[in-house]
């Protein structure tokens, strides 16, 4: 199988190359003094400096951050509800409806979700006067809606592994169900809850298509601004911005998986 292994390794390496080469080249050129992307004209931090002075980019970053934090928080709370209903409540009456409606957003094309949400917001506005126009609040609602379905998947996986004996012991000792949930279940599934929140946050922070439909004047998110700039050509400031964002995520992901590995290793002896 020697020849096979060679093929596997070279295709695999090429795959990782496609994933990483663009990022690596971009990071290198974000330190390029010149404006031209392909010509190296000396190392410089000037694009990072001009990034800090770009009020438009910074305010879009702030808008995206605000939206993502709210959307992820709402999504996580509702996602936990969905997960509990599926894992704990057995065959309740609306189970089929909930499972269909909570999994459809996972596979719905973004462009359809975005368009249909906008149409709903418009007809709601003409019927009840709410939401008045579109802006940060409508983007939060839209992001929370698909975010909760992803959050539910993450929490469900953890909830299935849960050792019910702990809860049964608490119930035998007279604790009520909601008390058990808050004092026992929630702390145990906390890592999954954090993961769900981070996933919903990332999905919201990176979303371009849905936000483009349901945003209003003055609520440009970072992806919307980046997209409008990128369409006009490659700009070195975006190189610097992307480098900062990708490095932040890389440190967070590598750090989290390192901590996770340590915890698993500590747990494995028993």
């Amino acid at each position, binding site marked *: 199988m020697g020849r096979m292994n060679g093929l*596997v390794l070279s*295709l*695999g390496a090429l*795959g*990782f190359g*496609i994933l*990483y*080469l*663009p*990022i690596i*080249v971009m990071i290198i*050129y974000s330190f390029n003094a010149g404006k031209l*992307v*392909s*010509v190296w004209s000396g190392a410089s931090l000037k694009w990072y400096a001009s990034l800090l002075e770009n009020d438009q980019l910074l305010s879009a970053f702030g808008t995206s951050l605000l939206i993502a934090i709210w959307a992820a928080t709402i999504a996580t709370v*509702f*996602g936990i*509800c*969905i997960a509990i*209903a599926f894992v704990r*409540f057995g065959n309740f009456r*609306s189970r089929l409806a909930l499972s269909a*409606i*909570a*999994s*459809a*957003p996972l*596979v719905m*094309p*973004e*462009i*359809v*979700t975005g*368009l*249909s*949400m906008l*149409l*709903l917001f418009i007809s709601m506005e003409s019927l009840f006067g709410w939401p008045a126009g579109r802006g940060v609040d409508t983007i939060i609602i839209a992001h929370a*809606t*698909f975010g909760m379905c992803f959050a539910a*998947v*993450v929490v469900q*996986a953890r909830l299935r592994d849960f050792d019910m004996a702990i809860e049964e012991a608490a119930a035998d000792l007279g604790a009520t*169900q*909601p008390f058990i949930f808050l004092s026992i279940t929630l702390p145990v599934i906390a890592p999954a809850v954090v993961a769900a929140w981070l996933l919903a946050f*990332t*999905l919201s*922070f*990176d979303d*371009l*298509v849905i936000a483009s*439909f349901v945003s209003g004047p003055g609520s440009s998110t970072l*992806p919307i601004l*980046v997209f409008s700039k990128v369409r006009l050509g*490659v700009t070195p400031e975006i190189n610097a911005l*992307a480098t900062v*964002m*990708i490095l932040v995520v*890389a440190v967070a992901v590598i750090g989290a*998986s390192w901590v996770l590995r340590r915890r698993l290793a500590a747990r494995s002896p028993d």
Partner: protein
Amino acid sequence: MRGLVRYVAHLPAVTGRRLVIALPLIWLAVFFFLPLVETLQVSFTTPRRGIPPYAPLWGFGDDGFFTNFTTGNYALLLQYWSDYFGPALNSIKLAFFSTLVCLAFAYPMAWWIARSTEKWRTILLVMVMLPFWTSSLLRLYALIGLLNPNGFINAAGLWLGLIDAPMQMMQTDFSIYIGMVLTYLPLMILPLYAVMVRLDADLLAAAADLGASGPEIFRTIILPLTIPGIVAGSLLVFIPAVGEFVIPALLGGPDQLMMGKVLWTEFFRNRDWPVASAIAILLLAILTVPIIYARYQDGRVTATDRSERPVEAK
């Protein structure tokens, strides 16, 4: 906080249960299901100038009940067949081949990861997941810097003397496929890895001991046992790829029309919302079969091995 805990702790259990089900159900019914109904409605109404740029489908005016029902938007899609169904077929074609290209890369990558030592497995899995957590828009933007006529690859090729003139890589099918791989490769690798890591190494050793050649082992053991992963990964890539907007918009040329891009143009540039809605309904109709099949697959997997923990994917 303590007060809240005590308050919640004394709610009747049944009320709590109902609330846990009803809250997400109502939210999703209002903000996910109703919008789709509204889109279906708008796709059957007439466009008009004004805000919003379409007439209400039905309502009650001075003369009582009225309706603006029309099938004209769908007739328009049929009439300008090549402008609408051409992109639709192109979307399916590009999504199909993107799925195959992703599979061609993901299969050996997943195999490589699954057969690595535990330490390397963690490192490689993190390397697969890392792009997944970073903005795909920014990564596609980085790809432009690589593929542009004056981008990194052409500059390097000219400098090394491999090519005489810059290659045209942007605005071709090639750039779209690379963009799709960049965006969707992790979604293909993770389900494949999940089935491959469970594959019993003794089976392969036994087959080799009995004299099976590499290709024979692959065809009779590895391939059949990894089919569920292939199906799951392909659906995860194919479904979003059909409706993809950002990749054809950034990397494709004016000829690479896909449905997402046509819908976007109708909506934002032509401001013909009823036709945009009709395209959305058409897109959903195309995706109905794979979406339902994906749900069926999903149900089957969770029904057969509930104990198996799914890989941490989205």
